[in-house]
């Protein structure tokens, strides 16, 4: 169609294939990108494009598409793939060439899609991905014969090794992208009979190419016999989750102390090196006190992500979805909601995007609405600060670390809240009792160290970028608002009480007094809407400015431990379980649902829940004090 338009950037090559066959891993190696990969279906939910220059200098645009079981889409993410291939996507030409990526260990399933794509008439090559795994499993695949029977060229690839795409690169260089393909072949839905006919063709081809595989128990089956066991399975899941939260506190102590020490050293150095000035005040009380109090929680976030990355790379997460499916089903959620909800533990935004893998629009909306109740990593600093300041560091019940236990309870509270909300939504909407699952349980893999390292590095980058941009700028703004106007001469108490921020805090404190929040907390909640961990930084700045004369950078925890009551601390924890989520989450909900209605409802119901939970917590804690 408008092929000439993009001539300068070279032809468009689309990666197409079943879910979880390694398209994105190939894409990353081909284009040098770092898109997220994991061992479950549905990690990629939108089109991603990247440039590739082949060894001979040819420029190609590589297009990564969400995985699909067929060209007849059932979910929003699969529609992207079908629409791009059929040229139905507005403003986008059909790809010039298709690389049909297949999992070499699962050709029985993968080749049906290859046959469907072949019918479209686009020039194509089949990438026999994970060919190393197939060989290790003792499968002998006669690639030349397979290509002959299929009637399309084949290259063998290994998506997890940088050199593993060499055959594909050579192919794209040599034979690859021809001129514009023919117009889209007519496409219509396949009946089950037609799919069965395709499958007979697949079996004939596989038999001709000498591919044999067995229905007998595999390595993954033997693990599943234990991990999916009706009794042992849930017990293993509970132990795994539990160990993660224990580790978040137990392992983080040393690196956190180092960071704290570093910040204190810098603060002391600045205090002596700089002459007393506005700039010195900004650097120490604004930037260092704010940023430092957030930065301290980096080790805990990285430890949490290390565990999540290992579990998702190994292929355990869909099993967890299997084990928890009854719970999900009983509150009227689709079993497919599990992965989006789990992604929301990192951040609700990718979680909400991942709901595109859910077929039913109603189920998808319910999942979007509860995603912010999963404890995102930005809330971890808030929890960790308060737990560190108020919960004693001691062992209970024979060796369990109390702080880790409380953190675990907070995560559970978020999940329980989400399940209750889903239940109410389902009852009110009189949703069907039958919600789809049909979730693929992929073969287990050893976690790939390179993936883990990249994944952790990305978390580090994201965190430091947030600290360096949003958090620093909000801290500077907050510092300014907290410093003007100056206190009148001879005023008692810290100057911040006379500032704009102090007055805003005093006004808000009226609203929050019933749930035990003082004016400092009320001030901190406002910038916390931009990014939740900012609330911690804001407390750092507000308290640094409230303290008269003393240098408090890096020592926020003991300060709040002295000035807050325990009911106030518990009330703030309860607040953050439900806390109205950050503005970027609301913007994502607006985009994904295409309406203002749902972000407004979401913000409203979360605010109400947070206030109610804090109120109850505060009153109960006061009664017991």
């Amino acid at each position, binding site marked *: 169609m408008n092929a000439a338009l993009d001539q300068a950037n070279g032809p468009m090559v689309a990666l197409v294939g079943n879910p979880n066959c390694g398209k994105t891993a190939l894409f990353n190696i081909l284009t040098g990108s770092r898109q997220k990969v994991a061992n479950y279906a549905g990690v990629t939910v939108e089109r991603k494009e990247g440039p590739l220059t082949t060894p001979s200098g040819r420029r190609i645009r590589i297009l990564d598409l969400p995985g699909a*079981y*067929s060209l*007849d889409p*059932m979910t929003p993410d699969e529609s992207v793939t079908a629409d791009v291939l059929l040229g139905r996507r507005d403003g986008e030409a059909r790809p010039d060439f298709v690389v049909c990526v297949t999992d070499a*260990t*699962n*050709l*029985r*399933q993968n080749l*049906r899609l290859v046959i469907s794509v072949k019918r479209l008439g686009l020039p194509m090559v089949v990438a026999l991905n994970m060919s190393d795994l197939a060989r290790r499993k003792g499968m002998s695949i006669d690639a030349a014969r397979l290509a002959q029977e299929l009637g399309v060229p084949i290259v063998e690839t290994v998506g997890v090794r940088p050199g593993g795409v060499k055959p594909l690169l050579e192919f794209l260089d040599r034979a690859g992208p021809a001129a514009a393909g023919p117009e889209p072949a007519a496409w219509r*839905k396949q*009946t*089950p*009979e037609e*799919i*069965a006919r395709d*499958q*007979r063709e697949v*079996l004939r081809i*596989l*038999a001709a190419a000498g*591919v*044999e*595989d*067995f*229905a*007998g128990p595999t390595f*993954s*089956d033997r693990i*599943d*016999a234990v991990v*999916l*066991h*009706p*009794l042992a*399975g*849930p017990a293993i899941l509970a132990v795994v989750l539990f160990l993660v939260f224990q580790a978040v506190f137990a392992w983080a102590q040393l690196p956190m102390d180092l960071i704290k020490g570093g910040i204190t050293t810098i603060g002391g150095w600045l205090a002596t090196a700089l002459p007393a000035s506005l700039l010195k005040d900004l650097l120490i009380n604004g930037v260092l006190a704010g940023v430092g109090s957030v930065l301290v929680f980096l080790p805990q976030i990285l430890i949490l992500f290390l565990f999540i990355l290992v579990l998702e790379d190994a292929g355990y997460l*869909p099993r967890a*979805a*299997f*084990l928890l*499916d*009854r719970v999900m*089903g009983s509150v009227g959620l689709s*079993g497919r909601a599990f992965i989006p909800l789990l992604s929301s533990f990192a951040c609700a935004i990718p979680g909400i995007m991942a709901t595109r893998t859910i077929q039913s629009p109603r189920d998808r909306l319910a999942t979007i609405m509860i995603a912010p109740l999963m404890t995102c990593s930005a809330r971890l600093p808030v929890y960790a600060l308060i737990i560190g300041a108020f919960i004693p560091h001691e062992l209970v019940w024979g060796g369990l670390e109390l702080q880790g236990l409380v953190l675990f309870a907070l995560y559970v509270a978020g999940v329980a809240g989400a399940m209750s909300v889903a239940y109410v939504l389902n009852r009110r909407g009189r949703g069907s*009792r*039958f*919600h*789809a*699952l*049909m*979730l*693929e*349980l*992929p073969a287990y893999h050893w976690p790939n160290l390179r993936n883990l390292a990249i994944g952790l590095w990305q978390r580090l980058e994201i965190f430091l970028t947030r600290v360096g941009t949003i958090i620093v700028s909000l801290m500077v703004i907050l510092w300014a608002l907290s410093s003007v106007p100056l206190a009148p001469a001879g005023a008692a108490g810290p100057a911040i009480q006379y500032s704009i921020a102090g007055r805003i805090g005093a006004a808000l404190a009226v609203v929050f007094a019933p749930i035990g929040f003082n004016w400092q907390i009320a001030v901190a909640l406002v910038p916390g809407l931009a990014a939740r961990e900012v609330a911690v930084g804001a407390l750092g700045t507000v308290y640094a400015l409230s303290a008269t004369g003393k240098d408090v950078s890096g020592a926020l925890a003991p300060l709040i431990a002295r000035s807050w009551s325990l009911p106030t601390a518990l009330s703030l924890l309860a607040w953050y379980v439900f806390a109205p989520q950050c503005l970027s989450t609301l913007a994502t909900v607006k985009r994904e649902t295409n309406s203002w209605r749902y972000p407004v409802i979401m913000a409203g119901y979360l605010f109400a829940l947070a206030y109610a939970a804090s109120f109850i917590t505060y009153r109960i804690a006061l009664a017991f004090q």
Partner: protein
Amino acid sequence: MDDRATPLAADAPAFAEMALADLQPGITARVVGVCSGPHAPIEVAQRLAELGFLPGEIVRVVARGFLSREPIAVRVGTGTFALRRFEADCVRVVPAPGARVII
């Protein structure tokens, strides 16, 4: 159109056709076909076919949930899928104990 007349080996004991949802764990069975279920429209059957629940394929229940016996993890061909009961009701199978090699 009707694929239900699945050829069984001549010497195999005759087993009655049943829903995949009722298959015991560990027993291999051969898929006869997919149909709409009591709680599932034909789109569910269509999807199951696309996932590989096709006539002649060997299936085996790998695991089941506790008490409600739901969800059901089913191995089909070289893949494993978790299904809810109403979905597994859409797949008609005939037990074929001892069927090991697929091809």
